């Protein structure tokens, strides 16, 4: 499944999510259909259970947040139940796509679909520099923590905002250097 063309995988995921969304809005036997498809694809993709559960748990936070909201309206319980099942199925379908397709392949596919150039550049640079900035942010937090002895909330807030501010300044400076490096190789 990892070697399948990303186009097919993206299209299949779209289809699966779209079909699931179109199902009736109360728990129904039809829901077994996407579930079965997922059950067949899961072992084929060799997606580890831990990976799926961890990500599913992250998604569950948002799902339940909205679900609580609807719980207040007693007549919408079946709607709510179906929404929870549906969104879990959809998240699993997305996870299969993500597990089998590195983001740069998805980017290549978007490029073939003539996605706007500015968005493509932004997405590509974002994907490339996300680990770099995450690392910088972690380094700054460690440096701050090594000489912070206060646990007062106001202080932590000020500290963290300072880190975010510095992170922005560093990103801006790096963007400038990247621009120069791109020009050095003929970009205009």
């Amino acid at each position, binding site marked *: 499944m990892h070697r399948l063309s990303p186009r097919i995988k993206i299209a299949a995921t779209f289809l699966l999510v779209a079909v699931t969304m179109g199902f009736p809005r109360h728990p129904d036997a039809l829901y077994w259909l996407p579930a079965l498809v997922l059950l067949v694809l899961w072992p084929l993709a060799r997606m580890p259970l831990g990976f799926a559960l961890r990500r599913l748990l992250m998604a569950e936070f948002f799902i339940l947040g909205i679900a609580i909201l609807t719980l207040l309206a007693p007549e919408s319980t079946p709607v709510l139940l179906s929404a929870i099942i549906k969104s879990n199925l959809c998240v699993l379908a997305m996870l299969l796509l*993500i597990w089998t397709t590195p983001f740069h392949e998805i980017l290549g596919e978007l490029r073939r679909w003539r996605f706007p150039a*500015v968005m493509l550049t932004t997405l590509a640079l*974002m994907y490339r*520099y996300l680990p770099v900035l*995450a690392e910088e942010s972690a380094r700054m937090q460690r440096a701050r923590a090594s000489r912070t002895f206060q646990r007062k909330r106001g202080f932590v807030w000020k500290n963290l*905002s300072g880190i975010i501010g510095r*992170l*922005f300044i560093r990103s801006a400076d790096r*963007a400038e250097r990247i621009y120069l490096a791109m020009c050095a190789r003929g970009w205009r």
Partner: protein
Amino acid sequence: MHLPDGFLDTRTALLSTGVAVAGVSIALRQVRLTMQPRRVPMLGLAAAFVFAAQMLNFPVAGGTSGHLVGGVLTAVLLGPSAAVIVLACVLIVQCLMFADGGLFALGANMFNMGVVSICAGYAAFDVAKRMTRSEAMWATVFAAGFGGWFGTVAASITCAGMLALSGMAPWGLAFPAMANIHMVIGIGEGLITGLVTYAVLRSRPELVGGAQGSRAHRWFAFAGYSLLISIGLAMFVAPFASPWPDGLEYVAHKLGFESRAGEAVLVSPLPDYQLPGIGSAAAATAVAGLIGTVVVFCAAWGLAKWLVPVIGASKKNASTGN
């Protein structure tokens, strides 16, 4: 506010994708016309920055924590159109790399957190800053903080509208719940937005504020975004808030969704028939929202005017103390 799949029905998902695409298109046109090529890599770095900043957790009361969303902050730093593109890219990566936020809900999330939050928040920032009639640092910090709060609340309202339109919850419930929660959450977003703006202003003021472009470009952006948000409000909020109960049917008819009218029963254009008193809850929320806006505005003004010199002074003391 990060909607997963499964909560919106197909119609709402499609409608919101339409307005989101329109919003991003306006932003793209604006960036193409006004941004220097030198600044293009900044968009990508800013997107990575927003993502990295969202991973930092701020402690809130009782062991819980919150984090920045960053739309209005990016708008204050880079200008609203650049911010719309940055947030759209952040949401795409979160969806396609981390399964965070749904695939069919991507348009809805882009519209709420990208277009509505940024444009409403930035407009609030702009108005608030003009009202101070000051170019001092505290004025920008205050306006950014207020904008951050306002943008968060505005996005929660269209989000509630989408949920109601999808029949997940009657408007009379969704609106008060979402708006009230986000009036509280927004305080955190506003505080962080203000504090970070302050941190950047203090050491590199030249980095704050995006490309302005000519007067005509600014007017185009203003008119375009206003029109778009009005359409969004008309689709997601007006059917419930309007005094004419057939508002939704009218819109549905116009858009050719009559066949789905059966489902619209669930949307319940008149939710107060089912749950008495809920109609007044929505009205109460609207009033609370107005009062909240005034309170937050004044609080942010006072806080910024008081805090900016204080933090600056403590900084000075600390450095002389060493």
